[in-house]
């Protein structure tokens, strides 16, 4: 039981960081731009398919897929936002307009992936050397170690960007008050374009990393990632980077521990139950309220 518990905790930490990364990229967009990107999961999924092409079809290391996924998703998102972003933000109800628009985009991306790769489940086939590590009696696949390692570099890098650079601070300021940012001369539209593109790039990288952790994905797996992303950011507090990381950890721990104690079908349910409780007690999320107050 002890080794099972240790295994569940190790899994939870690994998934928590990846879920946190998923939420982090989503919260940048939602918080700063009030855009509900329902296609975020499909962007993550597109990253997984990039990993599939680079590794399984071309035979390169999954690490090579990381810059490819980032650049590809960054450019696609840049083009998408350049065409539709300003109109969405200028809409009478930007949240509803973006909700509907990105729902359409998510269906379009899923259909595109279905067209390109069929409905069969795909997975990243690449054998790291060594295949796994043995730690405290646990066998941990190297692919998982690599995924977590990359995420552990990316998350602090993102935090450094958000909390230490002028652009990052401006992005966080946009979460708090877009008008006040405009009046000091910040081109919020341009900031939004960069934020959306970077967010999509990170989503693509997250997709590569998730493909190393989860055994298989299909063109319809995007919705699961979108739901997980929104659960994570609502749990932690909309627009709060720290909240996204905390939300990712809580969701992963509840999922893994409930799976261990009760069963797999109860795993996801636990995460949603926690979400409902948190929203009922602290509607702004766990960190959201605290961050505003501070």
């Amino acid at each position, binding site marked *: 039981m002890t080794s099972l518990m240790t295994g569940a905790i190790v899994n939870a930490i690994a998934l928590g960081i990846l879920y946190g990364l998923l939420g982090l990229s989503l919260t940048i967009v939602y918080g700063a731009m009030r855009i509900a990107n329902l296609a975020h999961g499909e962007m993550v999924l597109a990253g997984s398919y990039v990993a599939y092409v680079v590794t399984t079809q071309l035979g390169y290391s999954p690490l090579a897929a990381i810059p490819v996924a980032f650049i590809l998703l960054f450019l696609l998102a840049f083009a998408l936002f350049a065409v539709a972003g300003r109109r969405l933000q200028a809409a009478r109800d930007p949240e509803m307009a973006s909700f509907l628009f990105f729902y359409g985009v998510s269906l379009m991306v899923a259909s595109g992936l279905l067209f390109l790769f069929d409905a069969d489940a795909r997975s990243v086939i690449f054998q790291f050397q060594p295949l796994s590590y043995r730690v405290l009696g646990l066998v941990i696949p190297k692919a998982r170690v690599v995924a977590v390692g990359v995420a552990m570099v990316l998350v602090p890098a993102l935090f450094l960007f958000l909390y230490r650079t*002028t652009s990052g*601070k*401006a992005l*966080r*300021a946009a979460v*708090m*008050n877009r*008008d*006040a*940012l*405009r*009046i*000091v*001369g*910040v*081109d*919020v*539209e341009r900031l939004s374009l960069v934020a959306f593109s970077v967010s999509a790039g990170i989503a693509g990288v997250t997709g590569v990393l998730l493909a190393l952790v989860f055994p298989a994905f299909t063109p319809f797996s995007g919705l699961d990632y979108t739901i997980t992303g929104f659960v994570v950011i609502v749990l932690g507090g909309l627009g709060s980077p720290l909240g996204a990381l905390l939300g990712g950890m809580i969701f992963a721990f509840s999922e893994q521990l409930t799976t261990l104690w009760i069963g797999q079908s109860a795993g996801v349910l636990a995460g949603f139950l926690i979400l409902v409780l948190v929203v009922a007690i602290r509607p702004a999320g766990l960190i959201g309220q605290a*961050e*505003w*107050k*501070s």
Partner: protein
Amino acid sequence: MSLQISNLSKSYGRVRALSDVSLSVHPGEVLGIMGVNGAGKSTLLNCICGFATPDAGAIELGGRGICGQRPDHVSRAGVGRTFQVPRSFRSLTVLENLLVVPARGEPSGIRLDRAHHALEKVKLATLANNYAGELSGGQQKLLELARILILAPRVVLFDEPLAGMHSDLCRVFLDEVAEMLSRSVAVMLVCHDPGILYRLARDIVVLHEGRVLSSGSPAAVRCDPAVIEAYLGVQH
């Protein structure tokens, strides 16, 4: 640099918020804007800053049209503004609130020095590393003033800057306004309190139901029967 507004009109649906408003503010002068709630003061500022697009009329800054431009463009053109309810970035520190202002090619060291200097001027230097959300309402207004100092605009629009502010903080604010005027900055001051405007403004424009009810020197405006009637409801 002067700000010239000609025949400005703006409606929200069937509500006429501004109707044919003309006024101007010149370097080194304070133009006071008075009016009861709903008179159109905030709509006027929003039209100047680009938060609202006028239906008709012209806004010129130093002879250049800025009507309908985006707020960041208006800011870069040289117009600064504060808000009636201060809009600070609550979870950034006081210093960071100033550092989000675009550098425009200024080296980061100089920018940091200017930010510290601006905080010293508004007596917030000791709170530089506190979160803006921890400041009192009056201090948040001074933080907005510090942002204006960093921007160094040629025209400043103050929206009820002294409302609810402690007298010590008011003094800090008024000192800075006096310094701005000595640097030939044009100031538009929206204020409920006629006493403050009579003291500071060279000219006053009284708005009522979106129209210019009266304009001229403080002495002329305070004796205008239309103003007295609008403010007191009876003509004395």
